[in-house]
């Protein structure tokens, strides 16, 4: 299985440089009050997401699933490797943007506002987990090309919802229900919210993996 993860990495060597450039761009561009808080999160998310989707695209481009499924390889491993490599990508993307930020601060530049924080890491991992939980079953069922529209919607949601959510939290909103939910969440400590979110993410991934597996088992090439 490590072979499969290696494959996803090798396929995207070129994207590494893009990741660097994009991280830089995000750190510089996201300066205003609302976005600056989430600049690390957004940057890492976008990069990781791009890498995950990129891996799926390459697979389809070569029709190489024909080869993968001809090798003595369980379909289960192919599915799991996809989930695992997305974690590898998140990890990598996060490290890159974290280091970039640290480098810039170390050089005495006024931006970004702060160093990267553990809570950023948690947020990124959770968002990506939830994102892939929705995307992968669709990808495994329909293949990359047919999932593109769904993929786009998902990306827009993920990209903008967290920042909107952050601004809601700060300014309050006109919906009572939402305010109440927010008040409820505010009662938990940061630690508790964190753990709760992680549990939610893990659950989402487990369910997603189950669905992906049964869907992929029935796929024909």
């Amino acid at each position: 299985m490590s072979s499969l993860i290696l494959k996803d990495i090798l396929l995207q060597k070129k994207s590494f440089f893009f990741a660097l450039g994009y991280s830089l761009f995000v750190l510089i561009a996201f300066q205003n009050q609302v976005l600056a808080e989430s600049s690390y999160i957004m940057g890492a998310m976008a990069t990781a997401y791009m890498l995950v989707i990129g891996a799926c695209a390459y697979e389809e481009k070569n029709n190489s699933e024909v080869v993968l499924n001809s090798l003595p390889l369980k379909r289960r491993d192919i599915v799991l490797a996809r989930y695992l490599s997305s974690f590898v990508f998140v990890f990598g993307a996060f490290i890159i943007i974290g280091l970039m930020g640290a480098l810039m601060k170390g050089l005495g530049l006024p931006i970004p506002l702060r160093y990267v924080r553990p809570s950023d890491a948690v947020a990124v991992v959770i968002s990506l987990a939830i994102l892939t939980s929705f995307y992968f079953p669709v990808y495994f069922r329909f293949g990359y090309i047919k999932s593109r529209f769904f993929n786009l919607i998902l990306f827009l949601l993920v990209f903008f919802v967290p920042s909107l959510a952050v601004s809601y939290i700060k300014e309050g909103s006109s919906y009572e229900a939402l305010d109440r939910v927010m008040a409820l969440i505010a009662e938990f400590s940061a630690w508790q919210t964190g753990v709760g979110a992680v549990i939610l993410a893990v659950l989402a991934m487990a369910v997603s993996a189950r669905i992906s597996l049964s869907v992929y088992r029935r796929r024909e090439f």
Partner: protein
Amino acid sequence: MGNVLEIKDLRKQYDGFLLKDISFSLPEGYVMGFIGPNGAGKTTTIKLIMNLIRRDAGEIEVCGFDNIANEQEMKEQIGFVYDENYYYEELTVNEIKRIVAPFYRNWDEGVYQQYLKLFELPAHKKIKALSKGMKMKFSLALALSHQARFLIMDEPTSGLDPVFRSELLDILRGYLISADRGVLFSSHVTSDLDKIADYVTLINNGEILLCCSKEELLGQYGLVKGDKRLLEEGLRRELIGLQENSFGFTALTKSAANIAARRYENLLVERPSLEDIMLYMIRGEKHV
């Protein structure tokens, strides 16, 4: 002496295509030529063996392993070469090997390196930079480097020049010196199969039209050419895929020796090529 491949009552339904309960087997030590026109079911059959598509009914065994119950074990025994390159174009020869090799229990790096040298494959070149022939050789190098007992080749030589195809046949002959191996070679370049096949299976429209040793085939069947005036009922009955033109007729027959013995005047009975057999039998099917 077992069978490298056994297929029983295999059935698969697609939109507008049906593979109808086909059965055949390949004993150890031989090459089976799998011939038939495009869309006849050759690639479908191969995909069913590899479990890339799911069968509706029937049984498939490779080297004694059921292809679904023991799927992984079975795939360890199989070396495959497909008609197109499905390996990642962006990666290099070596990178792909690094990904593929760990999946095979019996991967033999020494053998792989030998083939790399023999085929003159540049280890650090990207797949997309290789010619069609080199891509095929690469697939072959991978297929031959894990002690596979069964080689499946789906139209491996389409688009390749005769020199190349001759080299491929040589490699296959070398592969078969070990008598416990087998090769399933699907192709419509029947001249290659004329040279290398031991057994021949002809498939058309999802049905097997014939399946026997090439020796038997060429012994029984003959290409008949002659004067149209000879075409009375007794003779017509023995002819398959009859074709008439202004100067005479040609047809295939299963009773070549019989017809030759009757010593008609202005009639010739020749040894048919596999292409002849395929063409006339298919034409014969169309007029039924």
